[in-house]
């Protein structure tokens, strides 16, 4: 190949690489402040909590450096009891942790699925031309704009068994005979959390998908119409494939959010075994028990689990996050 390159061409190529290097250098200096910032707000805290997870740090020793290295003891260790039994300890041997993992995954799967379907329906409605569309688009965002703490409190009262409006409605409609203690019963606590989360986050999904819908060229629909294609077929053959990139990105955003859910559950159903998630458990250890070793081990595992889910999702869904293929 090199033999065919003429002298002026070579010079031009050399000049180009020089220019490219120069541009790369300039780009690096423009990015440097941001990278530095990211290092301090993301990489350093992450590194610190991974470090803490290998120590016996408590609230009293995290600042004075008196905590000791304990290896993987926070993750898994054992102790022989006086009667000869072996007791496994550490996060990986803790049934509460696996319960929290199961709760989190269950919550993330159900909530993201329902929010995607409902969000898509809402987006399709909002994409249609009708009078007062601007107003409806703004109004639908209200649940999403309310701080989670406030909506969790509000729904907590609405779901109250004695004076909650939800029970009152269901009773009046004769759907139930006696009020349901939504947030108290282990079997309904997760449903209560799901109701509030879906109510709150569907607008966000709808908005992301609406943006995707508006990118689809109108003339595709027009030609489909001229060809007399059934609208349902148009949806599955035209709308959905073209919406896919936006849909996949929306789902990954929500999935990341759902896997680290904390505030809604901490306020609505504190300490209910049926809803406690990985973040809630880690918070309890860090903030309330002052057990930074175990709490950090849980945070680290949470980080790894989320990473695994995201990698799987990108790989299976072949999501194009870098935008190179489009």
């Amino acid at each position, binding site marked *: 190949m090199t033999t065919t390159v003429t002298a002026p061409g070579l010079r031009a190529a050399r000049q180009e690489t020089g220019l490219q290097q120069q541009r790369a250098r300039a780009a690096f200096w423009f990015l440097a402040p941001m990278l530095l910032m990211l290092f301090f707000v993301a990489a350093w805290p992450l590194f610190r909590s991974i470090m803490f997870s290998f120590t016996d740090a408590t609230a009293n020793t995290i600042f004075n450096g008196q905590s000791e290295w304990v290896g993987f003891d926070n993750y898994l260790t054992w102790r022989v009891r006086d009667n000869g039994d072996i007791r496994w300890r550490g996060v990986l041997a803790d049934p509460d942790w696996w319960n929290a993992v199961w709760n989190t995954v269950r919550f993330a799967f159900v909530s993201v699925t329902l929010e995607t379907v409902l969000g898509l329906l809402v987006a399709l409605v909002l994409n249609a031309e009708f009078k007062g569309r601007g107003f409806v688009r703004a109004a639908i965002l209200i649940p999403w704009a309310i701080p989670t703490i406030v909506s969790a409190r509000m729904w907590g009262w609405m779901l109250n068994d004695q004076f909650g409006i939800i029970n009152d409605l269901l009773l009046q409609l004769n759907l139930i005979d006696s009020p349901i203690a939504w947030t*108290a019963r282990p079997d309904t606590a997760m449903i209560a959390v799901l109701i509030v989360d879906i109510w709150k986050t569907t607008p966000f999904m709808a908005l992301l998908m609406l943006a995707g819908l508006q990118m689809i060229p109108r003339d595709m629909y027009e030609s489909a119409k001229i060809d007399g294609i059934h609208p349902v077929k148009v949806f599955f053959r035209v709308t959905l494939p073209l919406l896919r990139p936006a849909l996949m990105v929306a789902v990954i955003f929500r999935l990341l959010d759902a896997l680290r859910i904390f505030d809604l559950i901490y306020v609505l*159903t504190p*300490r209910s075994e049926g809803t406690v998630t990985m973040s809630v458990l880690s918070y309890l250890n860090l903030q309330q*028990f002052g057990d930074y070793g175990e709490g950090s081990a849980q945070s680290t595992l949470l980080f790894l689990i989320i990473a695994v889910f995201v990698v799987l999702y990108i790989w299976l869904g072949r999501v194009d996050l870098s935008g190179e293929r489009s």
Partner: protein
Amino acid sequence: MIHRTKAIALRSSALAAVAALGASGAFAQGVEVTIVSGAVGAAVANFDALVKPWEERTGNDAVLVPMPASTTDQFGQYRLWLAAQNGDIDLYQTDVIWAPQLAEHFVDLMPAAQEAGLIEQNFPSIIESQTVEGQLIAIPMFTDAPALYYRTDLLEKHGASVPTTWEELQQTAQTIQDAERAEGNSEIWGFVWQGNAYEGLTCDALEWIKSNGGGQIIEPDGTISVNNEQAAAALDMAAGWVGTISPEGVLAYQEEESRGLWQTGNAVFMRNWPYAYFLSNGADSAVAGKFDVAPLPAGSGEGAQSAATLGGWNMAVSKYSANQEVAIDLALYLGSAEAQKQRALNEGNLPTIQSLYEDPEILEAYPYFARWQEVFQTAVPRPSAPTQQNYNEVSTMFFTAVHSVISGEEDAATALEDLEADLEDLLQE
């Protein structure tokens, strides 16, 4: 949200007054000290009036930094600040159970309190709860112990007497609930309490177990005593209330939810702290003038007696404060009879100073205070002293186990056996 009612004019006149009286020559003047405290009830509104006499006397300035009402949330934040040796906060309002956990960060107030004569004025059990290895960690400001609230009108109507055992309570509650419902009062419930999985459930369940002769979870010498038949019987008894005399929702109730049900007139009995008395007699209360309080019922086993979990708040001085002398002086003032009386009259808080229970002014405003003296006789501390740093985790394990019993997921014997093993693991590490 920092409260400052200080006008410069006020401070200078106060300084002049101090100079004229020569009252506190030893202390620095014009110093600003900060107090951090949970914002509960009337505490924030009353703060400026409460510290005003001290500010005028010393020429210093007290600033309140309000925090969330939940004691567990406060605790997490305070511990971080203290571990980081933060000097921004001079005084901490501390819960009765925190002293052993935070002792190393607070100034020993024993010499100052002795000099001011506060030790002998207070209830000895309360001073004891704030003493760790001979050091007074915090000065008591007010105390708390729950009681059984009952509807005088309903008990009279159905010819029932005030129950003294849990069994009687269960029967009376069931009888009145059934009779009232038969008359068309479909929303009435027999007994409301706090069944949510949180620190409050530790208090409720400790009372059931202790009053049934089942010990106090972990004894003062550190023995884990919770796995015994009487304790299991007490929890099974409480589990039997859910869905019969108590609504199922009680499993998610904290203090305010139970008060909500009670204050709308829909409960015959309620277990709650003294603050509810004040509010239940308010103008918007459906039960105003129709209720009274009694000590909580006793169980039936050996050593059964009424038991009330000890609550209460105290004032501690941070070791990292730059103005320790002024802060100690303020803590002494806040624990003094003068300040406790002001707080009793304006916030309805129970004093820790014994003589105030005979103070005519207080008794005239709050005749029910006299009744709480009886409740204090049976006060039982939570096991914060023998568990120290681990108290929060112990309490969480305990209320989680109790919650699984009262919500019917486990029977009490199994739950307590597992709890015992978990507590051993935690405390014998």
